[in-house]
């Protein structure tokens, strides 16, 4: 299934299950497989919609449009096509920030929202990335990639090779990373008025943990959960995460 964005790009989408709708967003360098297994666990009580962000998975690559507001426009296109009522949003990493951007803009269309490892605040993550400048691809991979992908890249097999090709394409043919590096944090005053109930989930070993707790303390109707793991919770803590999300989406 495909949905057209406002600027005419084709997004790869899957939808299955029955019940109140939930849309799940992956992060940079990911794809819908990030959430696929968990989505399978939610599908008996939720209508789950998954899509590949532009430039990722089987969605079309575009030269630009990777900033959080532009990506929220893409989410809007998916919702207009497939979801007729207020939706639950679940986002991992950058996907969480896209969901947050959308919810700040259109709170009436968001029933509730779960942010899994949101890279909040952007300023802290941008500082981390800046430290990797000039240290070479291996250092970047080591810092950013989840273990299975890191192993695949090091092993040098097809999966690792394809992942590097995609990464290279994203870096060389798009403004994705430039746009991410220029991202401004949402004003605290806006976050303090965030209407939909919020669940923030962090891995206890993640560098995003402090930011996640901070975000929880600012938003008016928010709860924080800590799971054992790092940044890649959908991979590292899939079962525990699926149980938290099932409870939250069904509330």
């Amino acid at each position, binding site marked *: 299934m495909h949905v057209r964005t406002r600027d005419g790009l084709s997004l790869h989408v*899957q939808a*299955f299950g029955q019940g109140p709708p939930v849309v799940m967003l992956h992060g940079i360098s990911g*794809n*819908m*497989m990030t959430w*696929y*297994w*968990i*989505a*399978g*666990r939610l*599908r008996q009580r939720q209508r789950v919609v998954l899509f*590949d962000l532009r430039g990722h*998975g*089987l969605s079309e690559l575009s030269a630009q449009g990777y900033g959080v507001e532009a990506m929220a426009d893409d989410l809007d296109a998916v919702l207009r096509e497939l979801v007729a009522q207020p939706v639950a949003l679940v986002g991992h990493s950058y996907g969480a920030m896209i969901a947050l951007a959308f919810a700040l803009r259109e709170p009436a269309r968001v029933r509730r929202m779960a942010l899994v490892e949101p890279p909040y605040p952007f300023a802290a993550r941008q500082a981390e990335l800046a430290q990797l400048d000039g240290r070479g691809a291996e250092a970047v991979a080591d810092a950013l990639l989840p273990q299975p992908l890191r192993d695949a890249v090091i092993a040098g*097999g*097809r*999966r690792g090779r*394809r*992942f590097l090709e995609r990464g290279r394409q994203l870096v060389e043919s798009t403004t994705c990373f430039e746009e991410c590096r220029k991202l401004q944090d949402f004003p605290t005053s806006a976050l303090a008025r965030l209407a939909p109930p919020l669940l923030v989930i962090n891995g206890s070993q993640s560098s995003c943990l402090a930011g996640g707790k901070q975000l929880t303390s600012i938003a008016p109707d928010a709860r924080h959960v800590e799971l054992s793991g790092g940044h890649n919770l959908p991979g590292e803590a*899939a*079962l525990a995460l699926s149980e938290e999300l099932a409870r939250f989406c069904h509330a």
Partner: protein
Amino acid sequence: MNEIATEQVLATVAQTIREVIGEDWALDLEIGLETPFGDEIELESIEFVALGERLTQHYGQRLDFPGWLSAMDLDTIIALRVGQLVEHIVRCTSELATA
């Protein structure tokens, strides 16, 4: 398992895997029931999703690919062999035939 059905499904699954990979080396790739998805085929995660979509187009929604996948634990998925997918498809398609 019904042997003829298994052979037919394996042929379809193997061909679909080659199409999803879409690279020349895959045309000569031998894919059997014991072939692991991991070591030799090395599908990217999104290619596995694409495989599920193509097979669902072929066999219908009864395949319930997401349901099948999520019923397994992640260690099982990492060690998945083509034969397990074939077995699932044979089961889905024969259930409908006898319904």
